[in-house]
């Protein structure tokens, strides 16, 4: 990689807000999870509201070796999903290629003091001189945030896990790998149910893989999964225990005029997300992001071009493997806007109502604290205007794959390689 000076382990591999938006979790290739907490309103520092500061950092996954298959298992965190808050502590699921872990993040601000057999300085007391029993007393101490592993869900995936999604029933979640989707109970680690299996009997007949899967935000029986062929299947768990047969199939007919050697590769869906309302879902393929109405399977209701200017560059993007990059996408809290990433540290936002779109850049040079971001433009042929950047000078090593949008406010988190940028709608 030409990102000289950036350690591979520091590259951010997933970003996720919790349900309230007060916490933001990132995972990286080094298997670490960093959680940021939003500062509460503070009179002495009027601007601190909205700032996210590190709340807890822990090592979620370690590199492992599968001796049976002679395979190295990377520690890279593929996905993080928060659980709905159930008590004062916070819980999240993190997964690498094979193993899903449930973490508890809790606070402690009291400490017990006073021993019977030791005095305050830790010196042992004479056991024969104990004349009274002391019960420890709790004293306040500096806030301590602890992350502890609560459950480990392992040994259920033969292929690499690409998605996890918590069900709205609050007691189950799914995990998807290239060929199968499993359903877990959050309290049971030693068994899961295989609900989708697309593995052909003969692996030579393999034509598509599962690329992402997600539960419906409200209907606990509905989930979707996307495939490398550019299609999305919606399954209803009510109709049958095994969901190998879908109940809806979303596919846009291919335009024969634009068919090329790369058609199949660029139509592969890299991410699928339900809108908060549950009415729509969004899919991201290599060049575009599409919004589907769940009631219409034949074509998307909106198609937004993310970086159409790359269509002429597919050949070189194929050669440097960029064409296989998996861009994710996300909805704004009100579902009125969507966001997804591109190259050169650019990311795109589309306003669904006004049909306006904007390209912004996440970089240290161009974003000063509390200054507005300037929209960027890529020159698409003809004369390059001032402030425009030509397609040829885009840096394809600076890619924004992972972004997240606060569930209620216009705050976004953008992961650019090893940097996390948090932007906020300008207040007043």
């Amino acid at each position, binding site marked *: 990689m030409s990102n000289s000076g950036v350690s591979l382990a520091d590259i951010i591999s997933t970003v996720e807000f919790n349900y309230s938006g007060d916490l933001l979790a990132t995972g990286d290739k080094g298997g670490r999870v960093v959680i940021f907490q939003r500062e509460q309103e503070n009179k002495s520092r009027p601007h601190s509201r909205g700032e996210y500061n590190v709340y807890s950092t822990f090592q979620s996954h370690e590199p492992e070796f599968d001796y049976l298959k002679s395979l190295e298992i990377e520690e890279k965190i593929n996905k993080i999903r928060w659980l*709905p*808050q*159930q*008590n*004062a*502590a916070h*819980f999240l699921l993190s997964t690498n290629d094979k193993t899903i872990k449930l973490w*508890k993040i*809790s606070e*402690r601000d*009291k400490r*017990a003091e006073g*021993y*019977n*057999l*030791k005095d305050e300085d830790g010196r042992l007391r*004479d*056991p*024969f*001189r*104990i*004349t*009274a*029993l*002391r*019960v*420890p*007393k*709790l004293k306040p101490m500096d806030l301590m945030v*602890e992350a502890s592993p*609560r459950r480990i869900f392992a040994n259920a995936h033969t292929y690499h896990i690409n998605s996890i999604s918590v069900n*709205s*029933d*609050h*007691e189950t979640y799914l995990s998807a790998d290239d060929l199968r989707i499993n359903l877990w109970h959050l*309290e049971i680690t030693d*068994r899961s*149910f*295989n609900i989708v*299996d697309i593995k052909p009997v003969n692996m030579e007949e393999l034509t598509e893989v599962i690329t992402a899967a997600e539960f419906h935000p*409200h*209907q*606990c*029986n509905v989930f979707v999964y996307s495939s490398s062929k550019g299609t999305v299947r919606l399954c209803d*768990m*009510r*109709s*049958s*225990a095994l969901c190998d047969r879908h109940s809806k199939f979303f596919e846009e007919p291919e335009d024969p005029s634009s068919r090329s050697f790369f058609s199949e590769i660029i139509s592969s869906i890299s991410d699928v997300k339900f809108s908060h309302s549950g009415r729509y879902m969004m899919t991201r393929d290599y060049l575009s992001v599409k919004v589907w109405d769940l009631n219409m399977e034949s074509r998307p209701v909106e198609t937004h071009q993310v970086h159409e200017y790359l269509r002429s560059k597919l050949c070189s993007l194929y050669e440097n493997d960029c064409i296989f990059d998996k861009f994710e996408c996300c909805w704004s809290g009100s579902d009125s806007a969507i966001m997804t990433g591109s190259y050169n540290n650019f990311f795109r936002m589309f306003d669904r109502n006004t049909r306006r779109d904007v390209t912004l850049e996440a970089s240290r040079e161009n974003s000063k604290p509390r200054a507005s971001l300037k929209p960027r433009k890529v020159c698409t042929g003809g004369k390059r205007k001032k402030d425009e950047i030509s397609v040829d000078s885009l840096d394809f090593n600076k890619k924004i794959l992972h972004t997240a949008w606060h569930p209620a406010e216009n705050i976004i988190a953008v992961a650019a390689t090893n940097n996390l940028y948090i932007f906020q709608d300008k207040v007043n």
Partner: protein
Amino acid sequence: MAGAAGPGTGPGAAGGDGDDSLYPIAVLIDELRNEDVQLRLNSIKKLSTIALALGVERTRTELLPFLTDTIYDEDEVLLALAEQLGNFTGLVGGPDFAHCLLPPLESLATVEETVVRDKAVESLRQISQEHTPIALEAHFVPLVKRLASGDWFTSRTSACGLFSVCYPRASNAVKAEIRQHFRSLCSDDTPMVRRAAASKLGEFAKVLELDSVKSEIVPLFTNLASDEQDSVRLLAVEACVSIAQLLSQEDLEALVMPTLRQAAEDKSWRVRYMVADKFSELQKAVGPKITLNDLIPAFQNLLKDCEAEVRAAAAHKVKELCENLPPEGRETIIMNQILPFIKELVSDTNQHVKSALASVIMGLSTILGKENTIEHLLPLFLAQLKDECPEVRLNIISNLDCVNEVIGIRQLSQSLLPAIVELAEDAKWRVRLAIIEYMPLLAGQLGVQFFDEKLNSLCMAWLVDHVYAIREAATNNLMKLVKKFGTEWAQNTIVPKVLVMASDPNYLHRMTTLFCINALSEACGQEITTKQMLPIVLKMAGDQVANVRFNVAKSLQKIGPILDTDALQEEVKPVLQKLGQDEDVDVKYFAQEALSAVAQRLRKLDSPAKDGEEPSAPGADKNHFLRPGGPGEDTGKFVPLMSRHTESERLGWFLRRQ
């Protein structure tokens, strides 16, 4: 104990002698905060000792506040704490102070771990009974309300389990409040809470006045049964059982049945599954009339449901359903309304459905009697005995005794044999293991002649199976057969075949001979053991494989108690002494162990009058003690190899798609 040392050695006592009886308690208290979970757990489990030493006053003012804030611990510690506190009333000063236990249990009732929460609720329910009516309203009811309106759903789920214990003892005004709280939990935003409420609905209904049941519980039940989440709806089915028991037939028909009918046809297979799974309970709760009018048609639908899980659950209930029908008219109902559907299931496409049916179908023969069984059920049994799926055949065979009582097993033997032979040779070792376990039963029912002709060779073939678990089971099987058919049979049919294996070129088979002798010697008695088995064992002491030799030593020790003094002295002892000089350490070790056991046995035989109480107990005890651990009989040095073998097959079994 504290009192004895107390007054004399007070604070001012010369020499500074502390109260040494306090030391163990001091350790326990300090270990409440030890880094080692096990030590913390130990301390928590002895919490009553600590409390006793502190006295009721300090327990209330110091220990309980400390425990209330210690809910950061591991689940197992919290679980133990929740359990302890349920029995703590005496230690805080009796019922008058029982409310002091509420704060720590309240915090335990909000932790995320379900087992801990459930235990805290259980303890709270226990303590509620120790509250006086006044204390209940002053302390316990406010706690329930606090939990019920808590911010987090963990506390609200815990509240659901507490309403039914305080309701009967509360005043009317409070009762109304409690009902109001329960109502709001039934329509909580989070499905977790609605599920908790749904699962406690039946229990709560039981303590309510009948009018309130009709006016309040039934609407709640109807709402939960049509919840948008099927995970909630399926729990309403369970509540249906309890509510149905409280209502008269007319009310039942008007208030509950519409909902139940709807549940049996729910869009979600999980809800229909629940109806099938709870069918017997529902049947009993609604009574015979509604069963005939409503449940039987619903059951027919469940038996032909489009989801295999539902059909399997319903198939499981076929026998219970038929048993619970009113005796008059039962036969007609079964013959006309159930049997046609069962016939369909016999050729179901899903093996789990067929296997579920096979596990209960034989039970119908006792209900339907001989003629119907021969005419209608027998063809089904025979079809299932030929099923392609081994579990189906196995389930039929394992329930043969039901049919035997009605029509005798001979009717089946023609089809039984091929089925047994095929299972006996199944590629999955667990299937083979399962059929071996039914052999003694089958042998008893089929009789010795049939067994000798058809099954004996199978039993012998298992002795040389390539999986150790099968060989082991085959050995035990022989012992059970001998107990059934007697020693003479053993002498003529089994023992010669077993002994021939002693000169098999495969050392594993030679060892099997020894294992068989270990198992059979007691059942066969002294004569056969001494005359036929012992010479072979002794001969094998010269085997070239060390594993065989040390198993000889172990066998000699095992059969020692059956032999007489002469045999022990003249034959066994010299051979063991020779093995005791063996070049292999393991052989030496086991030979010496056996020698000392034999010597002990000889001493006892010399003075038999002394301890007639325990004829061979010390020998047997030691014998048992000496055998290196593990669940099965050990195969000596090669254990790892054997277990790896069985392990890999076991993995294949488990990795099968669920």
